[in-house]
């Protein structure tokens, strides 16, 4: 077992532990903070894969924007930040079976998938992955159309938010 694999197992355990705490803790703020730990673990996994851009983007978008927005929303409703009700409802056995079947299916599929048994190739010195990513996003034979469509979708969402916030009394 290489050092990288040991590191991966530790990080994966922390990430999964954080994810488990998100759904089991009763305090909503704590749940949001555990979620941040989980997302941070995923960012570290990206670092282990030499994908620096994705790691940083993960932190900027998921921790810096989404998680902070969640905490903001929770803090505005401080009275309900603690939940004392039951944490499961009557359908939990069905959900559990579906989850186990899905997980088993994924494990089975990955067992038969060849690339999962090969070690990642070491990148050559000075390999610039962001440059390639940038070129792929704007070149016509790359992802230009999906990129532009996604931009328009986000712009629409932005204008929509503005229209809602504008109010009727103007």
């Amino acid at each position, binding site marked *: 077992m290489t050092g990288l694999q040991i590191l991966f197992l530790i990080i994966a355990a922390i990430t999964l532990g954080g994810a488990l705490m998100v759904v089991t803790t009763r305090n909503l703020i704590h749940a949001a903070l555990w979620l*941040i730990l989980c997302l941070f673990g995923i960012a570290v996994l990206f670092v282990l894969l030499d994908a*620096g*851009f994705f790691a*940083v983007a993960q932190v*900027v978008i998921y921790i*810096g924007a989404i*998680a*902070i927005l969640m905490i903001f929303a929770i803090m505005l409703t401080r009275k309900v930040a603690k939940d004392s009700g039951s944490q499961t409802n009557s359908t939990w056995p069905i959900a559990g079976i579906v989850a186990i079947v899905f997980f088993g299916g994924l494990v089975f599929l990955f067992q038969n998938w060849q690339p999962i048994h090969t070690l990642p190739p070491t990148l050559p010195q000075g390999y*610039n992955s962001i440059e390639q990513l940038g070129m792929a996003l704007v070149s016509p034979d790359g992802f230009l159309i999906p990129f532009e469509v996604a931009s328009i979708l986000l712009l629409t969402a932005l204008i929509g938010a503005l229209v809602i916030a504008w109010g009727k009394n103007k």
Partner: protein
Amino acid sequence: MSDPVNFVANWLKTVFTNWGVSPTWTTIIISIIGVVVLAGVALVIDIFLVWVERKVVARFQDRLGPNRLGPFGLFQPIADVIKLLLKEDITPDKADKFLFNLAPVLALGMAIALWAVVPLAPTVIGSDLNVGVLYIVAIGSISTLGIIIAGWASNNKFALVGAFRMVAQMISYEIPMVISLLIPVILAGSMGINSIVKSQPVWYIVLAPVAALIFLISSQAELGRAPFDISEAESEIVAGFHIEYTGMKFGLFYAGELLHALTIGGFFSCFFLGGWRGWGAETYPILGIVYFFIKAFFMYWVIMWIKYTFPRIRIDQMLNLNWKFLTPLALAALIMTALLDKIFQNASSVVYIIVMLGGNLVLLYIAYLVTGIYARVERKKVASPEDNRVNFPIKSGANIVETQSSERVQA
């Protein structure tokens, strides 16, 4: 001997190899030593910064500042630290203990984490990340988290209000800051901070003065320093998010703020003032460290100058300045820089510099005209009485509450 840091690192490497340590472990041990030394240097500078801050603010306010302990009061910060350490450490009742203790650590830790990507000299850099610029933004968002946690865990209304204000400010000002950082990235063609510094034979403050100005203003807001200190606002919410912190825990927030300010000064010098660039820095990296710190401390002084010159602005003014002025200006500057850079990429460097500088000056003049027109419209609104209620934020806020409650009654 011109590059002492790498000399020591290489010497340690040979020592470890002679001891029979495997190369992987040698790299790991040397990295750990490097981290400890860099963080240690940053913290020692931090102690010195307490003295600098107090001395400079005293000069701005026509006072002498600390002058009793040691020459020029240089030992004053040591006395400050001892005082902070000896103070009683109070944790408020019903505070969230773990988070309450975590927040100051995050506040100072993130300021130190930023030093990982600061190029002190051509060869002295913690980690030459190829996404260095984004790394700064990412760390900035984690320090926002520290402030939220501090405000919430204190179980105090003033702290919570302070945290709200701080977060609203930080996430708004992140937008013009990121856009203004994209301009050096375009000019250098790289996101690595060291390569941005390397591609500045002409400092980018000449090529992109608008971006430099926006970065300075928005990073001042990121720091939460006056005139953007509504999160602390002593006269309104006492001390904001760190109201419940005593002793060294407060000290960590204070140290974090000072170190963060110097770090921002360092980044400003890297992006717009050529970082370690200077006479002989390429051949003698140790000179690069000196140049870097001279520029960083100069920008730190500018940040203090702004802080102690302007009064605090209101929250609506803060948001207006961001969304109606800085963000559009930053977007216009970004588009203009990208276009001009593409059109004149083959022109001689003199033409390129003149075009870039001219474009920026035209943009500043247009911004000046537009703000003039805006101010005239606003003044007219205040002058005509029937529009008065729209202009005062407190009254219009009350209107919103009234309409909401009346709507609820109707429903």
